[in-house]
């Protein structure tokens, strides 16, 4: 990025939630969402990520996207901590429906039930769904 501008005075901090609902490699949505997340972090906003439906697959360990000709970007989720993004919510029902557990994911997450997820979304200023 270019010179670090002084954003402190540029306006109030908003609460952004990026909602990931799609499997990682079949479409460009997951990778694009991650790019937007990284960009938003540069603007010192309050950022959280939510993973629902097939979006939970994005966080699975041991992905190999070579045969698809796609980049395996799952390791990038482990860099989010460097960007001070540490609120990653995964919907319990979506995990359970796919036979997954939090231990199989590439980063530590907070597993929340559907009701709690809905409440978290209601608290946001901006919710973007990918």
């Amino acid at each position, binding site marked *: *990025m*270019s*010179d*670090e501008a002084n954003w402190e005075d540029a306006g109030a901090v908003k609460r952004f939630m990026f909602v990931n609902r799609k499997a990682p490699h079949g479409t460009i949505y997951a990778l694009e969402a991650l*790019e937007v997340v*990284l*960009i938003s*972090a*540069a603007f010192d906003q309050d950022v959280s990520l939510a993973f629902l439906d097939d979006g939970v697959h994005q966080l699975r360990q041991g992905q190999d996207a070579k045969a698809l000709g796609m*980049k*395996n*970007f799952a*390791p*990038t989720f*482990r*860099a989010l901590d*460097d*960007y001070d993004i540490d609120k990653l919510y995964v919907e319990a029902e979506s995990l359970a429906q796919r036979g997954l557990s939090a231990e199989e994911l590439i980063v530590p997450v907070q597993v929340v039930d559907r009701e709690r997820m809905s409440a978290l979304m209601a608290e946001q200023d901006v919710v973007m769904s990918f």
Partner: protein
Amino acid sequence: MAIQVNGTTIPTDEEGYIEDLNLWSPEVAELMAQEDGQELTEQHWEVINFLREYYDEYQIAPAVRVLTKQIGKRLGPEKGNSKYLYELFPYGPAKQACRYAGLPKPTGCV
């Protein structure tokens, strides 16, 4: 666009970032620096090598804020600050060092 290193043609994008990370060699960095009228010292290489390791681990080129913080952690606080990094890479530490390291332009960089 492209650069020539040891008789091999390496394609680059319009801003001079190489397109295939696997074609990188230290000579690529040396040549890019030479074209910018700069000589690479051990201090430059510390940053370039850090960026390559970071990309290898996380699959992204870090933003300048993250770069600065991580350099401070790994190489010491006297190096983890904008002044030090801008002296080494006057075109912007993330942008210029990533280019020399053969990485894409950092995400969020305009």
